[in-house]
């Protein structure tokens, strides 16, 4: 079974595991490939690790823990796995004031600084993605204002956001991030195509150079720039999504679940890239449901619950309990 749970719901996963259990009792041998640690530990008797095409080893599941397993998968210690890069935090580049959009979210206000990673935590359905999509112009706010680099902006379409040097790495790369019927190269260059062309005609050698630069820089594993994007692994597809947005040289980068459904190696590459971006003075917003990731990387965390901002936590005060308490705070009033 190769990543059998990647496209099914929580409930179906439960059914699948029951069936796996039934098969096991009938003496059926199962090889189960997954990047989801909890699943592996839930159902495996023995765990084998492969890394970059090399066999690392096989261990009984009860003799190995999560940290050791990740260490073998990435070849590094766990605390190095989510590396926090310290970048100087500069002036405010994005200010959101009382932004509302119907029943999706209300009166959201925050500031984002240069060199900062601002985490946005919350439960599924808290309005985090809706907030990101609204700032980016995919949807329109019902009220409130967005100020970018001290200028009030009226973003009505993603192209306005792009012009204001804002990028959004959307939550679902297959539906909103990539053109799966196309190649690695055309996916990388589609957003910044105007800069690679003159009078509407694409400078193809320039385009090839840009594609190769990102394939090299982000270590995208692909046969060539002309390979169909659909044949790449999830992690490499995600790196293509990142490339296509970095090609527009954004100053404000919103990442919605940037590491969802990708292997640990690619995850670490993306964490490192985020560090490089803030060092280069970019401002990042990271929406994530993975608590270790959001706590490991953010300078500040905002928490949304049922469309309202219920908490703001600074790095020294990060704990899982605080985040979860704010995330499940459904009282009507706004705390901040």
């Amino acid at each position, binding site marked *: 079974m190769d990543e059998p749970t990647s496209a099914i719901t929580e409930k179906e996963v439960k059914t699948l595991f029951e069936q796996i259990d039934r098969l096991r009792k009938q003496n059926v041998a199962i090889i189960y490939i997954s990047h989801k640690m909890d699943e592996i530990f839930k159902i495996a008797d023995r765990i084998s690790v492969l890394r970059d095409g090399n066999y690392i080893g096989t261990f009984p599941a009860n003799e190995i823990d999560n940290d050791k397993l990740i260490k073998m998968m990435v070849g590094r210690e766990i605390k190095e796995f989510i590396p926090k890069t310290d970048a100087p935090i500069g002036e405010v580049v994005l200010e959101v004031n009382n932004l509302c959009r119907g029943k999706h979210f209300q009166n959201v206000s925050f500031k984002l600084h240069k060199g900062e990673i601002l985490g946005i935590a919350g439960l599924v359905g808290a309005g985090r993605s809706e907030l990101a999509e609204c700032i*980016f112009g*995919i949807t329109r706010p019902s009220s409130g204002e967005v100020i970018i680099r001290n200028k009030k902006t009226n973003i009505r*379409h*993603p*192209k306005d*956001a*792009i012009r204001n040097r804002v990028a*959004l790495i*959307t939550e679902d790369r297959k*539906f*909103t*991030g*990539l*053109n*799966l*019927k*196309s190649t690695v190269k*055309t996916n990388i260059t*589609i*957003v910044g*195509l*105007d800069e690679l*062309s003159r009078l*509407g*005609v*694409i400078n*193809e050698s320039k385009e090839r150079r840009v594609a190769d630069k990102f394939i090299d820089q982000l270590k995208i594993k692909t*046969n060539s720039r002309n*390979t*169909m994007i*659909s*044949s790449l692994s999830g992690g490499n597809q995600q790196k293509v999504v990142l490339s*296509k947005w970095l090609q527009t040289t954004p100053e404000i980068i919103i990442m919605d679940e940037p590491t969802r459904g990708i292997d640990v190696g690619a995850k670490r590459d993306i964490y490192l890239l985020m560090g490089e971006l803030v060092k280069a003075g970019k401002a990042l917003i990271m929406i994530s449901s993975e608590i270790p990731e959001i706590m490991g990387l953010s300078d500040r965390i905002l928490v949304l619950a049922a469309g309202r901002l219920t908490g703001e936590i600074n790095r020294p005060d990060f704990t899982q309990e605080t985040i979860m308490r704010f995330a499940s705070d459904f009282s009507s009033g706004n705390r901040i």
Partner: protein
Amino acid sequence: MNKTLRKSFEFSSLREVGIFIAFFVILAILMILSPNAFAKPANLVNILKQASINGILATGMMFVIISGGIDLSVGSIVALTGVIAATFAHPGEYPLIVPIVLSVVIGAAVGLLNGVSVAYGNIPPFIVTLGTMTIVRGVALIAAKGQPVFNVTKLFEGIAGGFVFNTIPHLVVYFVVITLVCAFIITRTVFGRRVYAVGGNETAARVSGINVDWIKIAVYTLSGFLAGIAGLLLASRLVSGNPTAGQAYELDAIAAVIIGGVSMAGGAGKWYGTVIGALLIAVIGNGLDILNVSSHFQLIIKGSIIIIAVLLDMKGKGKQ
């Protein structure tokens, strides 16, 4: 993993040359079966001429289908613009430029209407263009008072009727020039790339900052514009504008695009496939005529080829 990737890649490029192989095999068979009539150079030029009008329509259709739409109105546009062109081409009335400009402008205007309805009205392209197909046919019949429009100038007849160097029909020249210009647009320009992006994943295209509505309007307008040219050329070739001309031309255009490997779902396809598709339809029609196969049987053969082409296309995609 790597090996299977490479395999599917090779398979897909094999499929791309597959259409060429199929074309040349059919061409060779017909040449062997009819060395004295079919294989004569004059007849081969004739095939190009027969492919021209459908080829021009298919080129416009290709843009629309790659963007994820369909344009059923082109056959009716051919009739309407042909009637208009012939009406303004009577001897001693208007200069030649009037019928030329009117037919392309009216063609583009109908396309614009299609595009705006699809983009802003959010009506499925099949429905919109089915509607305009019927409306435009009605307008053509009204404009021509139900009768073919005859009596056009020699100059007008010369638009499509003449030859370059006494050998190459004007029609073929238009076909080649339009094809090359459109090939450049679809492969080398930002606009062409965005047409693929919209057809490949409309939501992702919008998130990528592409004005999806504008792209849709542009492809339908281009298709209508080319249909206007086709209508003008057909009227010139037939020395008359017939309001019942161009029936089912849209289906031949769609067939050429599909045989050429453009996916009906949008987002994929190559311009040279469309050219081969249009040529293949003409080759089969011409060859079977020469072999005295009845036109009734020809329909069965043409239909079967469309289905086989799409079957091969789906097999190729399935392997990927």
